[in-house]
Structure formats: structure tokens, C-alpha cells
């Protein structure tokens, strides 16, 4: 656990800051490091998949938690207790062949259990299963005073920690219920839509019939085709759904990245022409009428994990992810955003639309019933900062908000205006961490603490 100085960024590779990074192997080592933390404080980091500055701590200490304990256990009812540093990839590799699936997975398996709790991550099943925090039975939290506390959903500090971006302490372990599966496959209905109206209407009409749903939107399509997309809706497959070759071992699961992005990619590779070509091909490949296919877990849930280091494809200036949610009934705001982006020809390599169900009581948790749109945008596009700031205002006016695990640019004022339970969160955090030991670049930027 010898600490070293490192320049850190989030997954978007923007705004690097320098921190001392230490790699504790046990909760005791982590507690000893907390006690020695200087005035610039501490934050825990997992696999660095937060897009912005959530797991950076300029001038301070960052605890790389990926070596923490590394134990996990599942009982016969699918109740899993896992160390915070274990990735969902490792868990799935162990659990799927035993017939269990994690209750919620984001678009990558390479997030840690601790990160999944701290960001209260959501997946394609949010409309029926809510976010990760909804499935937690308990968690262990190393607080600023060095004590290791076991928290349950009855504790205020539990709901300040779920979605709390690591600012209440170091999560060391979580216990949650898994979902039984009969195969490592997903039965998927694919269908394309002609425009935004059809995308929204089809999702509203058919979402509830499937556990997993998501729409990809072609943001470069304009006019009457604006908002056209490809809907995918999936459910865990049963052995009878599988192709003959897979029936012998329906729970086999051992995915690996297929490709690796080159270490250096020049800027501008993802430009309007290349993204337009990709979008046209992707849209054209999707069937006009619903078609059923059977896909593996990895390509269905985590297509980007197939390319190791895909974030490097955005070139040296990196990229920002903009993900917002607006409540049901605020479709007009969603439409304005899509219209504006489409009109301005903003390049977003991946644009994903989801319908959210109920949120958790997490005070800084992102999801709420409504529509969520996520965009991946190269950071160098001119006029981007002003456009996204304008969107912030529309989203706030509609009663929506931005996702902290993705944010790298909103203002402290937008944060305060869109997370109404921030004062309550601050109060609970103040009690758990009166001296402000836990801090991150995100916390400084958004003046959370």
C-alpha cells in the first residue's frame, strides 16, 4: 500500500488533477490511511468508470479500493455479500454459472460493488427493478472516525451513502439479493422507430412487458426522422430459447474484451461524418418490424466492454457524458433537447434513452420516474459548454436533474436547484464526518460539503 503521486481523471479523460494514491488491502489499512490523511482529505476510488471527477481528490489522498479484501459469498437464496472492491464482472463470472444474476448492472461490468452503491447505479431494468440501492440489505461503511459501521435501510446514513458518491465514508462491503437465471442468455426483441414520437409511444406501450429495455437514438437524423431509434427489449432466456449449440451448458459465462483501443488516438476521429456513417449503419441494420433474437449477457448488457479502453477513442481532449432525467409529463423538454442537438449537428457517439421507474430513498440518488437521456460527446466541440448549460436550465425547470456519476461540468447552483434533498444529505454527512475528511473534486466543484 505504498502511496504514490498520480495524475487522475475520470473515464472521460478530462480535467486531470494530482493525488496521492494508496491501495489498502484491508479495512484496517484503510482506517490507518484515513487517520493520516492531510488537510486535502480522502476519497475512495474503484475502477475509475465515473465519467467526471467523482473519484479524484486534487492534492489529497485517493484510496484505490480494488484490492480491498476481495471476498464474496452467496447463499442458497441468492443473497450475496461482497467486498466493495470486487467488480460486477468478477461477480458475474462467479455467479452466472451458479444461476444468479446481479440485480442491477450499468452499461459496463467493470464497476466495483462499492462504486455501484456510491453512485446508486441503474440499468436497463430500472422501470421494473429500480436502482442498485433498492436491492441492498446492508452495507459496511468505514467512517471518518475510523470505525466500521454496519448500516441497513433503516439508517439515515445508509441512504446518504447510497448515491452519496463516496462522501460519507469508505464502503467496504455490501449485501444484496441476486436474481435467479436459468441461462446466460437474453431473449431480445429489436425494433426500429421512425421518429421521436414513435420512440416514446412504443416505449411507453411496451416497456412494462419486459425486464430490460433501452432505446438508441440517431441524434444526427433531422426533420421528420428526428429522434428515430432502435428499441431493444430483453428478458432472461430459458433453455428452450437457446440455439442448439448453447443448450448443453446454458449458464456458461466467460466474456473477455474482443478488441483493445490503440493507446494514442488523434482527436477528431469521432466526427460528424464517422458518427453519421455509424448511425446510418446501425439504424439500417435494425429490423423495421419487431424481431426476436437471442443474445449473450455480455453483448446485450455491456457492448462497450468488448473494446478495452474504448474511452481513448475520443482522442486527447476526452469526452463528456451528459445524462439527465425529466419527470414523466416533461416530454416537451426531452423533445427540445433532442431538437436542439439534432439541429446543431452535435456529435454524440452513443445516445441512449430509457424510461425510469421508482427511485430509491437515496438523498443524492439520480433516478426518478421519467425519461433519461444519455449522450457521449467529444469535449472539443465548439459551443458545447453554452449549449449544455442551457440544457441544465431546461432540465431544472422541468423538475429533472443530472447524474453525478456522469457529470463533469454542471454548476454548484444547478446541483443545489435540482437535488432538493441536498440540505438533508449535508446534515447527515456533517454528523458522520464533522471534520470533512471525505472530499473529492466533484464535491469541491459542486460545493457539496
Amino acid at each position, binding site marked *: 500500500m505504498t502511496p504514490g503521486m498520480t495524475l487522475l481523471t475520470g473515464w472521460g479523460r478530462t480535467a486531470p488533477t*494530482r493525488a496521492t494514491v494508496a491501495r489498502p488491502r484491508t479495512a484496517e489499512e484503510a482506517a490507518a490511511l484515513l487517520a493520516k490523511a492531510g488537510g486535502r482529505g480522502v476519497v475512495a476510488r474503484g475502477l475509475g468508470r465515473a465519467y467526471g471527477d467523482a473519484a479524484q481528490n*486534487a492534492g489529497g489522498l485517493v484510496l484505490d479500493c480494488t484490492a480491498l479484501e476481495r471476498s464474496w459469498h452467496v447463499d442458497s437464496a441468492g443473497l450475496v455479500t461482497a467486498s466493495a472492491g470486487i467488480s460486477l464482472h468478477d461477480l458475474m463470472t462467479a455467479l452466472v454459472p451458479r444461476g444468479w444474476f446481479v440485480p442491477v448492472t450499468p452499461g459496463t461490468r467493470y464497476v466495483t460493488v462499492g462504486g455501484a452503491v456510491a453512485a446508486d447505479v441503474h440499468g436497463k431494468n430500472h422501470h421494473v427493478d429500480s436502482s442498485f440501492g433498492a436491492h441492498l440489505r446492508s452495507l459496511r461503511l468505514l467512517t471518518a472516525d475510523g470505525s466500521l459501521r454496519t448500516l441497513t435501510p433503516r439508517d439515515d446514513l445508509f441512504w446518504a451513502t447510497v448515491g452519496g458518491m463516496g462522501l460519507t465514508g469508505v464502503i467496504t462491503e455490501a449485501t444484496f439479493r441476486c436474481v435467479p437465471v436459468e441461462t446466460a442468455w437474453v431473449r431480445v426483441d429489436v425494433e426500429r422507430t421512425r421518429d421521436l414520437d414513435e420512440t416514446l409511444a412504443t416505449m411507453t406501450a411496451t416497456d412494462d412487458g419486459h425486464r430490460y429495455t433501452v432505446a438508441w437514438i440517431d441524434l444526427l437524423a433531422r426533420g421528420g426522422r428526428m429522434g428515430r431509434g432502435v428499441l431493444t427489449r430483453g428478458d432472461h432466456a430459458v433453455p428452450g430459447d437457446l440455439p442448439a449449440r448453447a443448450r448443453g451448458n446454458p449458464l456458461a459465462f466467460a466474456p473477455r474484451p474482443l478488441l483493445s483501443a490503440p493507446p494514442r488516438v488523434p482527436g477528431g476521429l469521432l466526427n460528424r461524418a464517422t458518427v453519421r456513417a455509424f448511425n446510418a449503419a446501425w439504424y439500417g441494420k435494425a429490423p423495421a418490424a419487431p424481431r426476436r433474437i437471442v443474445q449473450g449477457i455480455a453483448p446485450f448488457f455491456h457492448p462497450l466492454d468488448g473494446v478495452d479502453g474504448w474511452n481513448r477513442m475520443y482522442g486527447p481532449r476526452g469526452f463528456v457524458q451528459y445524462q439527465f432525467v425529466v419527470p414523466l409529463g416533461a416530454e416537451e423538454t426531452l423533445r427540445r433537447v433532442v431538437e436542439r442537438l439534432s439541429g446543431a449537428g452535435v456529435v454524440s457517439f452513443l445516445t441512449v434513452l430509457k424510461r425510469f421507474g421508482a427511485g430509491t430513498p437515496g438523498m443524492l440518488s439520480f433516478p426518478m420516474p421519467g425519461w433519461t437521456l444519455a449522450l457521449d460527446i467529444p469535449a472539443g466541440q465548439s459551443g458545447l459548454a453554452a449549449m449544455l448549460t442551457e440544457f441544465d436550465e431546461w432540465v431544472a425547470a422541468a423538475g429533472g436533474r443530472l447524474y453525478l456519476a456522469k457529470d463533469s461540468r454542471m454548476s454548484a447552483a444547478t446541483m443545489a436547484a435540482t437535488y432538493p434533498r441536498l440540505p438533508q444529505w449535508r446534515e447527515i454527512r456533517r454528523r458522520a464526518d464533522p471534520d470533512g475528511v471525505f472530499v473529492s473534486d466533484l464535491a469541491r*466543484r459542486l460545493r457539496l460539503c
Partner: protein
Amino acid sequence: MRNALGSVDTVLLLGGRSEIGLAIVERLVRRGARRVVLAARGGTAPVEDLERLGAEVHMLDFDAARPQAHAALIEEAAAKVGDLDVVIPAFGVLGSQAVYDADPVAAARDVAVNFGGHVSIGLAAARRLREQGHGTLVVLSSVAGVRVRRANFVYGSAKAGLDGFAQGLADALHGSGARVVVVRPGFVIGRMTRGMTPAPMSVTAAEVADAVVEALDTRKGTVWVPARLRLAFAVMRLLPRPIWRRLPR
């Protein structure tokens, strides 16, 4: 903290009445900076415009000629607004060569401000930025320091010293999370040069400020304003001395 698209939250301007400095600060505030410290001699500076734009503005007394107070000033600014995202030393004096020729003491005094003052405040700021693990120091150099001319060699040599200092500091800070942007404007039309005939490729304070703000967005370490001065000076650096010394100004 600086965000992913280059906006910053806090700015410290040293030389709080500087035309270029205030033009940069105004742009940063328009782009989201919310806490500003204006440090100037006597502790007075124009705050109304920045406050109208929504910034919280603090004023501090700062004398570039008193290096012993510089480290404390940086700490005081940080105590007021937190981490310093951008520090802009924008103070300086432009005296005439004829006056300096007649008054070597005045020349030494101005060099102490234009070079010495920047060294002490620059090092104090760098220490703070290094501890923070992030932040940008904007050093306002000049083409006058790139190749010193006989017409203003006291001013030019101080700028040459400053430019060298800024480059060295940029290298020293490499990997620390903090960085230095060296700005090399040509002749700047404004209060400081009132009454002088503008040189070719002159710029305004606004143009310098635009270029600085653009550099903050990117990872550029050196900015020429206008950009074509880079090429012009690549040539002028090679001009033989006998020709160079005959330049009219």
C-alpha cells in the same frame, strides 16, 4: 474546480485594475466562475461589473514591489475563495527607454516589478497550485521579451526574464496537476500604451483575453496574440543583429 469543458470556479487577479486582467476575469465569470479575488495596490478595484454578472468579488491589498508579502497574499486569497483555479498576475509598468537611460534607479524599480514581482508571486502561487494538485497560472509575457529591441530594452529584458521564468516554472510543474500558460501578445492597444503609435499586428485587451480563455480550454502551454506573431517571430529571431538594431522601434 475546473470542469471538463474548461470553466473554472475561482480566479485570482493580481493587478486588479489591469485592463487585460479584468477582460480575462470578465470572460471567466461569464463562463461560470463565481468567486473572484482582485488584488491591487491600495486594495481597490472595479467590482461592480463582475458582481452584476453574478460573481462574489473580494479585494485584497497587493504591492508587486513587496515580495516579502506575496506568499501571505496567496494564502489569504485561498482562505477567501478556496482552491485557486486560475491565477493571473497582470501587473506591470511600461516606462520609456529615454527615462530609464536618464534614471537607472527608476529602471531598476520597474524591472523589480515587471520581473522580480512576477517571480515572487509566481513561485508563491505555484506552491499553492502544487499543493492543490490543480490550477493554472497565466503568465502575461510579451513579444518584447522574445527578442529584445534597443528601443525598449529595459522593459524587453524584464519580459525576457519573465518569459524564461514562466517556461522553467511550466516544466517544473509538469505532472503536478498544475500548469502554466505563457501568453505572448504583440503591441496591445490600451490604457498602458495610450499616446503610442500601434505597431504592426497590434491587438486589444479583449483579443488577448479571448486567446487566454481559449487556451484554458485546451492543453496549450503557449499562446501568441495574434497567432500569426509566432511565425513572424520565428523569422525575426533569425534576423542578423546589424539589421535588428536598426529597427525604428
